[in-house]
């Protein structure tokens, strides 16, 4: 079922009058009128965050090294972030993430520790007794990627994604360019009334076949025709979108060149593509934008050290390049970039010099003008320790919804709006 914007506002408890006023004045949004953008970067495969952020003090590093054996990052390869977790454990950053170090030193980066997909708070005792309410298909990539993009409604996940629902509230779109952009398939941006737009990291091509007005007319008529076949209509819809998008994009491309301060890697080109949309925000009249990017290869079952080194290099160079470009433009405080990843990885290494699918992991947040901080506790990195689910997978202490809520609140949702999109948030203790 799709809801119109008004139906959605009504479903959220707004009176019909409230639903008629611009969303940014409704009870679900805060009133900030400055530009804000949230960029979600999905690290697909299950990022081993605890290979990237490692305790510096001897005792905790020893626990970590005992668990991870040959995969453990030696202290000599860790950079001092100056950050401590809520227990006071000093945290180091893997040297392959060095391009991001200045962001930590300047207080522009935050860490969220031991966060994972959850539908209810979990204790080791619940797991032992078999009473734990666990997310369905807990260690399957595709199912947990979906879980991360939705909120739990009690029996099922929300049909729309949490960022799409946020966009429903915050974006006042009366046509023109959509303000939700993505570089790959996702459901995070699916909302009830918001519109989304694909941006191609390989760049924009204009339609070359429309050589005459008559051609354009026919091409357009076929795209707009009615079809008894739903799949044919669906294809026609994409062609219609291409016609609209090419007009919009031609204007963007001629006015706002790709930002070549950002590297040309896979992730870098995705950042370039969305940066162009940010640069064009004034032309579009957008004061809120949201973005979904994704990069694969994080399923490091084997040769984790070399695989992670390459992944960290690409990630850190792309994020740092993006951040510095924003900083030079004076917009770094208006853009928040946060990572998502379906799960963390096992406490132990496996016999292929890799790690297996875990549960609790960690995430990075950059920019947004907030004072960088560390949220949560570094988990006890001990096999059969208090945070082990019994199989060497960390029980998360922070729900993915708390993490998501933190970001969308920054983007401009009121607490009431947050609690409507994440109706079960209070069982985890609300916002982090």
């Amino acid at each position, binding site marked *: 079922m799709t809801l119109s914007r008004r139906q959605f506002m009504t479903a959220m408890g707004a009176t019909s009058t409230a639903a008629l006023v611009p969303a940014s004045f409704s009870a679900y949004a805060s009133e900030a009128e400055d530009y804000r953008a949230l960029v979600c970067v999905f690290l697909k495969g299950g990022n081993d965050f605890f290979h990237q952020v490692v305790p510096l003090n001897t005792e905790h590093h020893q626990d970590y090294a005992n668990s991870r054996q040959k995969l453990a990052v030696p202290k000599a390869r860790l950079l001092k972030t100056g950050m401590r977790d809520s227990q006071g454990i000093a945290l180091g950053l893997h040297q392959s993430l060095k391009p991001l170090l200045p962001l930590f030193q300047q207080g522009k980066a935050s860490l969220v520790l031991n966060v994972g997909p959850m539908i209810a708070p979990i204790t080791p005792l619940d797991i032992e007794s078999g009473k734990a309410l666990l997310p369905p298909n807990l260690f399957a990539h595709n199912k947990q990627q979906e879980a991360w993009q939705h909120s739990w409604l009690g029996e099922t996940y929300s049909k729309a994604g949490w960022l799409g629902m946020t966009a429903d509230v915050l974006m006042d779109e009366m046509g023109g360019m959509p303000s939700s952009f993505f570089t790959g398939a996702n459901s995070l941006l699916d909302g009830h009334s918001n519109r989304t737009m694909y941006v191609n990291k390989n760049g924009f091509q204009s339609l070359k076949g429309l050589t005459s007005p*008559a051609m354009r007319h026919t091409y357009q008529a076929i795209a707009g025709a009615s079809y008894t076949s739903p799949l044919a209509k669906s294809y026609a819809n994409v062609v219609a979108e291409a016609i609209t998008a090419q007009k919009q994009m031609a204007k963007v491309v001629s006015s706002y060149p790709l930002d070549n301060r950002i590297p040309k890697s896979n992730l870098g080109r995705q950042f370039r593509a969305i940066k162009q949309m940010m640069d064009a925000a004034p032309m579009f009249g957008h004061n809120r934008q949201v973005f979904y990017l994704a990069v694969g290869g994080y399923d490091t079952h084997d040769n984790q050290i070399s695989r992670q080194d390459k992944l960290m290099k690409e990630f850190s160079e792309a994020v740092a390049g993006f951040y510095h470009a924003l900083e030079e433009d004076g917009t770094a405080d208006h853009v928040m970039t946060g990572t998502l990843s379906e799960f963390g990885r096992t406490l132990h290494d496996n016999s292929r010099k*890799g790690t297996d*699918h875990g549960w609790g992991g960690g995430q990075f947040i950059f920019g947004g003008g907030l004072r960088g901080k560390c949220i949560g506790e570094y988990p006890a990195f001990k096999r059969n320790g208090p945070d082990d689910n019994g199989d060497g997978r960390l029980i998360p202490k922070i729900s993915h919804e708390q993490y998501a809520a933190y970001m969308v609140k920054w983007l401009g949702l009121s607490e009431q709006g947050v609690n409507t999109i994440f109706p079960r948030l209070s069982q985890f203790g609300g916002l982090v």
Partner: protein
Amino acid sequence: MTSTDTDSLQLSTFSRASRWLDLTTFGPKMDEPDKLINQSAKAWFDAQIALPQSSHRMQILRQFEALDKGKIPSRSSRIRAWLDIALYGNDQLRQRVGYVLSQIFVASDKDATLSKHAEALAAYNDLLCLNAFSHYKTLLKAVSTSSVMGHYLTMVDNKKGDETGRKPDENYAREIMQLFSVGLNERNLDGSYVLDADGVPKPCYSEKDIQELARVFTGWVSKDKKLVDPMTTNESFHDRGEKHILGHRFPANVAAEEEMDKVMEILSQHPSTPPNLCKNLIQKLVTSNPSPDYVKRVASVFVDNGKGVRGDMKAVFWAILSDNDAFSKLPPQISKAREPWLSLVYIYRALNAKPGGNSPLVGTDLVYLRTCNQYPLGSPSVFNFYQPDYAPQGVVSNQGLVAPEMEIIDWSHVIYVHNQIFALTRLNLQGPKTPNKKQLYVDVESLKNHLVNGDITGFIHEVSARFFNAQMPSDLKHHLTEQHNSVKQVAGKSVQRLLFIALSSPYFHVMENRA
């Protein structure tokens, strides 16, 4: 419908013969449907399987020698070799089915290791084609023990756990169950999920099953640096302890290969494997939303081919392709978005494309990394380019339908693909005098002749036959006629424009029966 009924499937009309070739090959070539009219589909099917198999490995080496500059065959040479075979190979059925299998038993050159092993990927493509009509168990074992899969899902060099708490890698154990056999949740024979008392799907396996299966998949090594030969066993790395998997006991002290065979048997016998696999195969060959009855008919053939044999893939593919629904039911029941990559291949075949300068080898790779959002054996992960349950929001999801291929068909790639179609129809053989070996040139002479004679009806009739199984909708006919009548005609350019209108339309990009 019993198997005797479908054995006699007659290709009684041009449309039916053309539709049959649309489903069973990379696209009908000119005159091919005519030759099949009133022939027995089963006879054609059997004759196709009896043809010698094209070799991707031989072809990549030919491409490498002729056109590559590096020291080892490039990824591009593998794609050009794939095109050589798709465009000119005779064993079309085997290749088409092998391509489907490459999207289920996924291995990809996007992997950091495999990106440097194009020849091995070509050999893996051959392996899928070779085993396409064998038994499921044989196919699954060939996949499981291939060095390419061993590297892709990291089973190669997997070792038993040790006293430090290190455990075997679970990667292959998990994905062989989720993606190559039983699936996440239990299914009935018609593909629907088995629900518990609360209406919740029941998982096929537990985490414990995966951990135990990971112990089975230890002790396999690859001695071939080129990753072409299958893996072999090294018992000293194999976990020889007792194990329990999916309710089956694996006694202690059994060799790796014997345990592997036992797993193949268990996965083949599992009641969820036939519906899970068969529904996926139907979706990739015929329709995105098969009826439960269609799934059940095919899954029943997997269970028993009529001679008491389970997992006979030749019988399964015959059941899928000869099902009466595939030729008679209208959308949405029978309807599927054409994969963008295959839509280009279809057009090149239909227009009898040839490399320039009489080159025996395809010299273009169709800019495979960006044009279609997909290319053979280049999936972004083991989850393939698109998921079988993907439903684009709106007209498809509102009706509770799915359209998997639409996951990679976004506005930007529609432009890339449509531009490619526009460009390829310009490069016809009557064009430049010294044709470029790196291009494919199409033959549009007969189409052009209609326009030279001012015969738009004849033009439409031929386009309908060659691209629409002679079922071009009147709507599209109308548009082509209007276009023809409203623009001053220059025969060469007009062919390009009119073909572009037809081949960029949803009627071409969605495969379905039309009334």
